[in-house]
């Protein structure tokens, strides 16, 4: 069965520092991959998605992610973190079987704290 692993439950970075959030997926073929962000008390907002093509994808709020097939990874990066980036981040993979028409499988999330 497909799965998504976010190894880090909680990460703290200083404002202005770079950020990398890890995501690993299990699936044989090229998956559709997504990163979402959830601010406290809010729903999830799509940051970026990868369907095919260039393995480095740009998203909103200055985020980018790189698809690495050899490592089954889709890590999220930002060169300089702002205090407003403090939130929970979810990686997701599109479900791949005959009957699926758009389901996503989510990781358990990584909570990001930002130190002043």
């Amino acid at each position, binding site marked *: 069965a497909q799965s998504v692993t976010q190894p880090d*439950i909680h990460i703290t970075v200083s404002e202005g520092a770079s950020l990398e959030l890890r995501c690993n997926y299990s699936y044989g073929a090229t*998956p*559709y991959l*997504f990163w*979402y962000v959830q601010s406290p*008390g*809010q*729903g*999830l*907002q*799509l940051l970026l*998605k990868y*369907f095919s093509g260039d393995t480095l994808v740009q998203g909103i709020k200055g985020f980018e992610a790189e698809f690495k097939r050899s490592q089954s990874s889709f890590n999220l990066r930002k060169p300089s973190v702002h205090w407003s980036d403090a939130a929970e981040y*979810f990686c*997701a*993979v*599109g*479900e*791949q079987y005959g009957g*699926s*028409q*758009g*389901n*996503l499988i*989510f*990781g*358990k*999330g990584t909570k990001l704290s930002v130190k002043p």
Partner: protein
Amino acid sequence: DVKVTQSSRYLVKRTGEKVFLECVQDMDHENMFWYRQDPGLGLRLIYFSYDVKMKEKGDIPEGYSVSREKKERFSLILESASTNQTSMYLCASSIPGQGGQPQHFGDGTRLSIL
């Protein structure tokens, strides 16, 4: 922009009550989803629907039912609420597509069962 609206941000109900959570989307999406979110467990899929009057069980359907009488509206029903159903509930919608499509989420309903 797609808008997914959940009828209540906060809701407090009593054990044994029948509880309705409503979700409306304005982009004519075929797919709609209900998740519950608990700390450390991420998002867990309760039910989803590919079309009007169609529904499919997700990973944790026990204790819940759904209704989709109109394309834009997807209701989650707690038949007899219990304290272990206290949680954040998230509704989402998307277009259909093999391999997954971006889902658009509402702001969530934080439900407390006393």
